[in-house]
């Protein structure tokens, strides 16, 4: 009979069997056993961040960049509550994570013990699955389940709450090889008949359009999608999460559609007669006014999640399938379609209102992003949330081998920088460029210490406009220019009804260059168009993390824009 082993030993064994080589962990009383076991074992790299929120975003970035499951270990109580934002983020954007939270011993649960919280209860609605291990003999099965659930079907975060006494208790040493969960059957095949119906519609269409979401990127079906687009000659629009599903310089690629989408892309959705969508859940940022969404189109919807189909938009042909499998099947039938006139129409829209920022005064985000495109044709671009994110989603070019990582569903400020660090930890040979704003950069700035101590290089491009620009933009357009709580220079001494930056404004804090230097990193401030290229060149040559602080005008807007709830074809263009 096999020897019984401690829970902590089985835990490390499970990680090894699951192929885990990197763990993001922050210590605390209730996970010291796990940390000790990892330390003694020594084979798995343990990344120590500076805050648990940074930790989980790092694991998300790691998982997105590598396609592997991100593993987090945090302690009970505050350690656990600090990862909730990241769990919600991963839940929304379908990122596979296994998060282990320490918990007080079983006999203490419910006593309001020191650092005790009901983390499973708190996170029920933002995890794919969550469970407290209540019996040592269940530990192996639960760990196996957790990895299986996290990475199969529609991926997502799984939380395992692990009481301290389970970590030390002796029990079976075997890690199960198979998993059987009677209530969990992720979609594995494609309903061929239904898909054929969808393809027939597409083929008969005069103005067919693919709407591609993040599902195609998650399935890593980019090459196949490009082939499908080329074979059928059907133009493609993407969501923000779908960006990069096909190369952005392809003549059949129109652009992003949605709230800040390209004019031609939104017009194409408005005018198409068949909308063939893959891997998107028709979020409100894509549809706008539901009654006016793709009003002339029959809609085909491929998604791995039955609950995403016909929820927001009632579709004509629903197909439950993995995006990659569906595209593969479609390639068996795909034939060229006559789309010349339709493509010409789309091109005409694009010429009518191209995606462009003014060039008449000073440095614009477009200039910075275009230079980033020139300097870094490959690599991983990670963004935070806000104006810079939308500019990046508009102007960053995506080619083969390039990746775009962003917080799309939850829109988590503070995501970008740690996610970039995690991406670099997972892909040390690739250049990682983090594009952030001055607001989001200050949420999780402490992770600069993680980047330095881990010796990872991230090129951090901070678009500093001295304000929380996305909200300021709404205030400028829809709230009578009352800039409530969006100016980051504002002090008590400022006038109550300030309408914008003036000569006499107080200085901006912090000084990002000095801040970088205080961590042993380096940085430069970029004020003019001429300085952009040399700064990026310099950053390229540096061995460690650098900050490039781009001084962007406060009144720069993300355009086009559709007011929340309006039809997507009613765009504010200027």
């Amino acid at each position: 009979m096999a020897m019984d082993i401690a829970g902590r030993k089985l835990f490390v064994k499970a990680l090894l069997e699951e192929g885990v080589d990197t763990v993001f962990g922050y210590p605390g009383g209730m996970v010291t056993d796990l940390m000790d076991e990892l330390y003694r074992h020594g084979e798995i790299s343990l990344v120590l961040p500076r805050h648990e929120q940074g930790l989980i975003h790092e694991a998300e970035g790691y998982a997105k960049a590598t396609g592997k499951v991100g593993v987090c270990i945090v302690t009970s109580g505050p350690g656990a509550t600090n990862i909730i934002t990241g769990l919600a983020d991963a839940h929304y954007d379908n990122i596979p994570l296994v998060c282990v939270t320490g918990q007080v011993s079983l006999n203490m649960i419910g006593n309001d013990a020191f650092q005790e919280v009901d983390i499973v209860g708190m996170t029920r609605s933002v995890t794919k699955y969550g469970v407290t291990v209540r019996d040592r003999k269940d530990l192996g099965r639960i760990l196996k389940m957790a990895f299986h659930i996290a990475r199969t079907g529609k991926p997502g975060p799984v939380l395992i709450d692990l009481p301290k006494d389970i970590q030390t208790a002796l029990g079976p040493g075997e890690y199960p090889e198979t998993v059987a969960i009677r209530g969990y059957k992720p979609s594995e095949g494609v309903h061929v008949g239904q898909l054929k119906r969808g393809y027939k519609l597409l083929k008969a269409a005069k103005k067919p359009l693919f709407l591609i979401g993040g599902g195609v990127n998650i399935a890593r079906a980019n090459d196949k999608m490009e082939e499908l687009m080329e074979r059928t000659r059907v133009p493609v629009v993407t969501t923000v999460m779908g960006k990069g599903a096909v190369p952005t310089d392809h003549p059949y690629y129109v652009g992003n559609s949605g709230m800040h989408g390209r004019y031609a892309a939104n017009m194409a959705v408005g005018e198409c007669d068949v909308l063939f969508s893959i891997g998107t859940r028709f979020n409100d940022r894509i549809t706008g006014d539901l009654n006016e969404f793709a009003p002339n189109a029959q809609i085909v919807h491929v998604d791995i999640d039955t609950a995403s189909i016909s929820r927001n938009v009632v579709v004509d042909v629903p197909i439950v399938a993995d995006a990659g499998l569906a595209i593969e099947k479609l390639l068996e039938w795909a034939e060229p379609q006559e789309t010349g006139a339709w493509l010409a129409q789309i091109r005409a829209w694009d010429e009518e209102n191209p995606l462009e920022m003014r060039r008449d005064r000073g440095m614009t985000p477009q200039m910075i992003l275009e230079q980033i495109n020139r300097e870094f044709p490959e690599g991983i671009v990670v963004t935070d949330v806000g104006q810079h994110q939308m500019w990046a989603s508009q102007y960053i070019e995506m080619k083969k081998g390039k990746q775009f990582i962003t917080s799309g569903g939850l829109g988590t400020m503070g995501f970008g920088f740690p996610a970039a660090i995690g991406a670099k930890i997972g892909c040390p040979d690739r250049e990682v460029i983090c594009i952030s704003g001055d607001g989001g950069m200050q949420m999780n700035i402490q992770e600069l210490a993680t980047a330095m101590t881990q010796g990872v290089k991230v090129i951090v491009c901070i678009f500093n406009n001295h304000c929380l620009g996305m909200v300021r933009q709404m205030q400028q357009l829809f709230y009578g220019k009352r800039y409530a709580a969006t100016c980051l220079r504002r002090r008590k001494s400022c006038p109550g009804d300030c309408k914008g930056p003036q000569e006499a404004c107080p200085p901006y804090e912090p000084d990002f260059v000095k801040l970088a230097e205080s961590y042993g990193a380096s940085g430069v401030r970029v004020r003019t168009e001429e300085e952009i290229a040399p700064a990026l060149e310099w950053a390229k040559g540096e061995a460690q993390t650098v900050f490039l602080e781009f001084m962007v005008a406060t009144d720069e807007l993300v355009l086009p824009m559709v007011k929340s709830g309006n039809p997507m074809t009613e765009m504010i263009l200027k």
Partner: protein
Amino acid sequence: MKNRWIALYVENQVGVLAKVSGLFSGKSYNLQSLTVGTTEDETVSRMTICVTSDDVTFEQIKKQLNRMVEVIKVIDLTDMPIHMKEILFAKVRNCSVEDKAELFQIAQVFHVEVADIGTDSVLLECKLTERRNNELIDLLRSKYKNIEIVRGGAVAIESISTSCAGRSEYFRK
């Protein structure tokens, strides 16, 4: 908007009830009643759930339940022949002799049992459909001042005999 019924097989584990009920509150679904108990297999619980919703929302509710790891099976009972009963206790206090006599008559008509009796109070034990229980409560309210009601929510099971099929409305009333 109408009432719909779901039978839900779930893992008999800690937190599953919270997860299922949390779905209804978190997504603003209109939950009418939810009962739960273990089945012939003690690792499995069965819930009977009644919701008020439109067609689209109801489809979404079933899908959302189905995607939960802990949910084993979702059965839509809405258009199925079923047997459905709800347990209800009604205690009537401050009864006169005439009141008591009348309560015995009511019990006879409604097919409910007089489970207990005191000098001035009567306890009725009812196993009726929810709708019939509602009617009984309305009647008691109109006649007596001091009543105490406790009810358990409906449980339902699919019918066996085909003769029930055409009369499903009777069983669910």
